[in-house]
């Protein structure tokens, strides 16, 4: 089958260490952490009091007050990122082409903030007072629908929910739809706004979050001996994907090319990854085969800062690349912004595209004492200029939903 080529022509991002691509990217290259004591709510009675909370994000810079009031924070991130990506791409919309533009997003949790607020209010004020906007506001697919409504995109519209792999799945499926000719353009990515009291308590209950409350910027430390769990984050990563000839014909900026995608399941446990990392290895191998590659120049790891993930992912990388694994730089975006669940894979796709553009690898911060079982080159502390042609990004979700994406330098 003749597959069409798919390129990235626009980016948008909101993360704890920066809103907007340039600000975010500079923070990543400088190794700046966005983790702090959270104040989205009062964390006093929680064992964990820190998060990758975004400060200074003003939804009104990206949408009208009327819209901002009616959608949840995860949709704010989506609409903001969509505007950034579309501005950068200079995409021209016509009544003829809007049916060939899709919107495919990822969100693990949907509108948690309004959900919690409405449940509390309904139990207090009575079930006749449930807000009629609850369903459209809480539904995870609100983000894709709101973007389509705003811009008039009439192609496929959906939201994929696979926990921490949601954003990566969305990008992969958008890539396929363009590759196979169903659509020419797709706004894709992942968004998450998980910092609510109930949701946070639920993650605390699983004992998966770092309790390094006294030193927030050092709390997320993938591959380090002293890590004690991941840090919850929020945000969004948005990409405009486009069929290559379509982009070339209109003189669009080509930022990178999506060249490989695979997804699978570990069929093992709702939370714990297969300790051998066999499923993670399998998904990387499949993505490499999809791209027709045998190795890559950089791996943006899932790297959550939990022992279970660090061990499984390290083993998997070695299983896939053999002795060459030790020569492939691997780094963790989550060391700086925490784990933004359904947004993570998409924010990391923004990182991969920027790394290819600038030929530089952002670091893994807080890696002071490597865990002896984690012995790859994790690019500790400092960004590293490097010749980058092909990069691989891993996303592994709760429930063993695995995704690998491969991005290549624009040619």
């Amino acid at each position, binding site marked *: 089958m003749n597959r069409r080529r798919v390129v990235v022509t626009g980016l948008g991002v909101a993360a704890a260490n920066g809103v907007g691509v340039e600000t975010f990217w500079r923070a990543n290259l400088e190794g700046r952490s966005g983790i702090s004591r959270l104040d989205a709510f009062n964390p006093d009675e929680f064992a964990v009091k820190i998060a990758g909370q975004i400060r200074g994000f003003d939804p009104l810079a990206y949408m009208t007050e009327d819209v901002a009031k009616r959608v949840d924070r995860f949709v704010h991130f989506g609409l903001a990122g969509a505007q950034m990506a579309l501005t950068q791409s200079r995409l021209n919309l016509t009544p003829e082409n809007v049916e060939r533009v899709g919107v495919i997003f990822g969100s693990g949790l949907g509108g948690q903030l309004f959900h919690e607020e409405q449940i509390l209010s309904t139990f207090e004020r009575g079930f006749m007072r449930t*807000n*009629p906007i609850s369903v*459209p506001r809480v539904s995870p697919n609100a983000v894709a629908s709101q973007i389509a409504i705003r811009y008039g995109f009439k192609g496929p519209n959906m939201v994929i929910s696979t926990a921490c792999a949601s954003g990566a799945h969305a990008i992969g499926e958008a890539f396929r739809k363009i590759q196979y000719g169903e659509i020419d353009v797709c706004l894709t990515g992942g968004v998450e706004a998980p910092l609510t009291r109930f949701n946070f308590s639920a993650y605390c209950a699983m004992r998966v979050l770092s309790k390094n409350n006294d030193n927030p910027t050092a709390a997320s430390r993938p591959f380090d001996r002293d890590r004690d769990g991941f840090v919850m984050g929020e945000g969004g990563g948005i990409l405009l994907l486009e069929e290559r000839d379509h982009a070339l014909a209109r003189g669009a900026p080509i930022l990178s090319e999506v060249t490989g995608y695979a997804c699978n399941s570990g069929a093992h446990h709702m939370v714990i990854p297969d300790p051998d990392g066999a499923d993670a290895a399998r998904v990387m191998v499949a993505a490499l085969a999809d791209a027709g590659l045998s190795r890559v120049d950089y791996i943006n790891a899932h790297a959550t800062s939990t022992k279970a993930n660090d061990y499984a992912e390290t083993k998997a990388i070695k299983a896939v690349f053999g002795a060459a694994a030790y020569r492939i730089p691997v780094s963790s975006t989550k060391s700086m912004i925490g784990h933004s669940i359904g947004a993570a894979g998409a924010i990391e796709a923004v990182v991969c595209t920027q790394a290819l553009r600038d030929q530089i690898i952002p670091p893994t911060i807080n890696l002071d004492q490597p865990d002896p079982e984690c012995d790859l080159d994790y690019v500790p502390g400092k960004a590293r200029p490097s010749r980058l042609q092909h990069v691989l990004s891993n996303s592994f979700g709760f429930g063993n939903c695995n995704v690998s994406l491969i991005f290549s330098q624009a040619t």
Partner: protein
Amino acid sequence: MTVPEIQQKVIAIVAQKFSVDAVKINGETRLAEDLGVDSFGAVELMFELEEAFNLKIEDSEIARVRTVNDIVAYLVSWLDKQNPPTT
């Protein structure tokens, strides 16, 4: 509360709810046509009015309301029923 006071209070609530400058709203302002309020917005507005005036508005009344003054008229008649004129 006098009728003009009720009208002012309704206008303030509508203005805040739908992010419209209060000076642009008067008794004849139509919720759907002039302010773009949809059915969800109308229900949300009724919740706010119920809280502000401490009353219960029936669904059938929501459907009948078209302008700001329709709301005011409904509130006035409701308040009259609660506190019949003593003179």
